[in-house]
């Protein structure tokens, strides 16, 4: 966008209602992650290799390269401070906003992140109810109530399937 946009633009923190207790909170992280699955005949050497790999990608140089070249968040502390000291964020204004927003406040139980069973299904449910509200077929309160009710059914099903 810096190169191609023919209009003025800038990046800012998300707005918030200041009459909500504890506002502003941190935003919730999202995106891909690595999950290690095991199998019946894993050797110790394989586990050691997995640990080695995770150590490798979370070194400061690799995390910094990932952040600078792709624009995604650095996956560890230390990178931000280093780049800030070097003046990287003055040369690239707005590149620091995601990080600042994620670390805006001490996370509460609910703002720590989403770990729900059958999360894709719940996300779709929320989106469906939201769309129905936008169409005018239900109020926002009804949409949220429906989402909660349907989401709870999904959570119970997840619990049952994974017992």
């Amino acid at each position, binding site marked *: 966008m810096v190169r191609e946009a023919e209009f003025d633009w800038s990046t800012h923190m998300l707005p918030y209602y200041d009459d909500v207790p504890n506002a502003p909170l941190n935003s919730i992280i999202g995106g891909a992650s690595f999950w290690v699955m095991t199998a019946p005949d894993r050797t110790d050497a394989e586990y050691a290799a997995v640990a080695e790999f995770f150590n490798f990608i979370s070194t400061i140089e690799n995390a910094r390269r990932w952040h600078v070249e792709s624009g995604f968040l650095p996956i560890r502390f230390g990178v931000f401070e280093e780049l800030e000291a070097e003046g990287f964020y003055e040369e690239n204004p707005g590149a620091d906003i995601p990080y600042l927003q994620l670390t805006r406040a001490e996370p509460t139980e609910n703002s720590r992140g989403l770990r729900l069973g*059958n999360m*894709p*299904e719940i996300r*779709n449910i929320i989106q*469906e*109810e939201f*769309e*129905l509200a*936008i*169409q005018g*077929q239900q109020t926002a309160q009804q949409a949220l109530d429906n989402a909660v009710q*349907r989401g709870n059914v999904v959570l119970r*099903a997840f619990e*049952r*399937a*994974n*017992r």
Partner: protein
Amino acid sequence: MKRRTIYRHKLLPYLLLAPQLAVTLVFFFWPAGQAIYQSVLIQDPFGLRTQFVWLENFQIVLTNPVYLESVRVTIIFSTAVTLLAMAPALLLAVMADQVVRGASGYRTLIVWPYAIAPAVAAVLWLFIFHPSIGQIGQGLRTLGIPWDYRINGDQALLLVIFVSAWKQVSYNFLFFLAGLQSMPKTILEAASIDGASPRRRFWMIVFPLLSPTTFFLLVVNIIYAFFDTFGVIHALTQGGPGRSTTTMMYRVYRDGVINLDLGGSSAQSVILMTAVIILTVVQFKYIERRVHY
């Protein structure tokens, strides 16, 4: 005396049939059997934990108001697509039958939509009807009509019905045209000598004689509307704003592939398969009796 093709080698007919039978076995019977098996289980997405639950998946699915809503949408959708695909095709076939000059040109142009993949057809019409980048979409909005199928469920359903029907018109047209061209001219000439108007000739002679074709196309169109319209729905609306274009087939995809509810979606698959089988059997038993051969 019945004509039979005699093969010299006894094994040859079986060998010739084998590839098609293999395909049917691998791509129909095996997945169908798997679906029936999985529909009586509750599993986690990786299949590591499995519980046998008899028909509980069916009970959960059939009492779910979201699923019943998709049944309602499917009925509306299939009826509309079948009618909208067959009527214009018959009209076009009648008109193309009477054309003398450039007949093959008209036929080629009318058949083209059938060659397009469903998703491509969907994207094509998306570019025409999109409220901000489509010619007709923008046109409707400048006329004052609040056209936006991305937030209006009824408009989304209308668009999806239209695109699905448009794709199927070519197929129906081909069969109707073939049926019309194999009509015995003597009966029609006799009728016109007796003073029957073209309209009467059509509805009293041509249409009943076309009934085998019409019956066949009815069966094929309903199956098309149930199953083959997935590509169009997925490319255009992904189940529509707030479930308005979610047919039973799309519900199976949503629950099976995205929500990874293997038991529930297998139960829905089995229900869908049973529904279409019953529909086809009913059509053969009751409507075929009225077909003139």
